Each structure stands twice: as structure tokens, then as C-alpha cells.
């Protein structure tokens, strides 16, 4: 069974990312949308944590672009059709509201 975890809140001053990383499974993937894209801001703790975790990691390209975030090569920038595709590929989607 696989779960697509979707985060949309900034990791700074919010515990969703750290909590998600604690319970994410080996078959799962993580998608960063909205302010969650700030997790890919270089030189930060969330960036370093994600880099070392080696997860299946996706970010919505337009949200990264809007925030001047360069997507590192260990994450994949995707568009909305690819988001839909990911949702279908996984058994369920867990949106951290």
C-alpha cells in the first residue's frame, strides 16, 4: 500500500513536515505545494533533512517558480496533470490540512 502525502504549509514555524517525515512509509511519496515549497529553500534545515532522506519527492513547478525556489535534482518539479497522475498511482492521498 502506498500513500501520497500532500503538504501545503510552510515548514518554518509549522510541524507538518517533521511530523510527516516521522511517519512516512518506504512506498510513500511526498508532494510539496503552496508554501510547503519553501522546504526546498537552500541552506535551511528542511532542505538538508529532505536531501538526506532520499524520499520520492515532488513539488508543484509553478509554486516553486513563484517563490524563487530552484528545484534541486533530488526533487521532481511537476504540473497539475502530473499531480493527478500521482494521486491515481497511489492507493490513497493524505492531505495535511
Amino acid at each position, binding site marked *: *500500500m502506498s*500513500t501520497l502525502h500532500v503538504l501545503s504549509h510552510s515548514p518554518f514555524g509549522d*510541524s507538518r513536515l517533521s*511530523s510527516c517525515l*516521522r*511517519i*512516512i*512509509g518506504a512506498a510513500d511519496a511526498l508532494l510539496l505545494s503552496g508554501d510547503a515549497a519553501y522546504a526546498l529553500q537552500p541552506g535551511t534545515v528542511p532542505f538538508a533533512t529532505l536531501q538526506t532522506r532520499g524520499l520520492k519527492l515532488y513539488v508543484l513547478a509553478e509554486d516553486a517558480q513563484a517563490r524563487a525556489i530552484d528545484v534541486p535534482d533530488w526533487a521532481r518539479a511537476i504540473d497539475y496533470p502530473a499531480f493527478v497522475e500521482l494521486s491515481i498511482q497511489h*492507493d*490513497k*492521498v*493524505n*492531505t*495535511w*490540512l
Partner: protein
Amino acid sequence: MAKSLLIISRQSPWSGPGAREALDIVLAGGAFDLPIGLLFLDDGVFQLAARQDAKSLQQKDLSANLQALPMFGVEALFFCADSAAERGLDPGALSLEEAGPLTAGEITALIDRYDQVITL
């Protein structure tokens, strides 16, 4: 067979409507005999603190509603042991005796077991 649903409640009881809304979903699901589970994660474990008293806030606390869960047929009740420990809550002195502690790995497995997940 109805799809099973896991609610993950991660808001403190006094931070806004999140905690009550999560509980309302679970009670409604229980009333309709849906296979439903409830996990308290992060600040959500504060909902389980004993001796909450919101009289001076002129609000009702959720403790009484939580006690209704087993009556509504919701018996899959869990809390994150790490969240409770980080927040200084004694796992043996929580207001919902039926809730069982889970490690991070057990939570991963719990999410796997359910068809759908809602995190509030």
C-alpha cells in the same frame, strides 16, 4: 463493504475548530457504522489531557464527546506516543483510556491499513 476511514487529529483542543470538527467526522461515521479510526498526533494529543476546564473560557471541552466514541462504535482509537512524550503527557493518565499508544512505525502501518485518510 464501506471503505475504511482514518481521521488524524493534530490540532490542540483550544486552537480553533479543527479538533471538534475532526471529532464530529468520527462520531458521524461511527453513527453510520462506518469502519473508522481516530489517531491523535502532534498537538492533537493535548485533547486527551485530563482535568481540562474551559468554564472560564465559556466553552465546553471535548472530553465528554471523546468519552462517547466507544458508545458510537468507534473503538480504533490511537495516539502518537512520541507526541505525548514530547508534550509531557503521561500516557497512563489520559482522559480516553481506550486510546492506545503507537510508535512512528506503527502509525505508518496504521495508515497503510485504512482505505482513506483525512488529516485535520
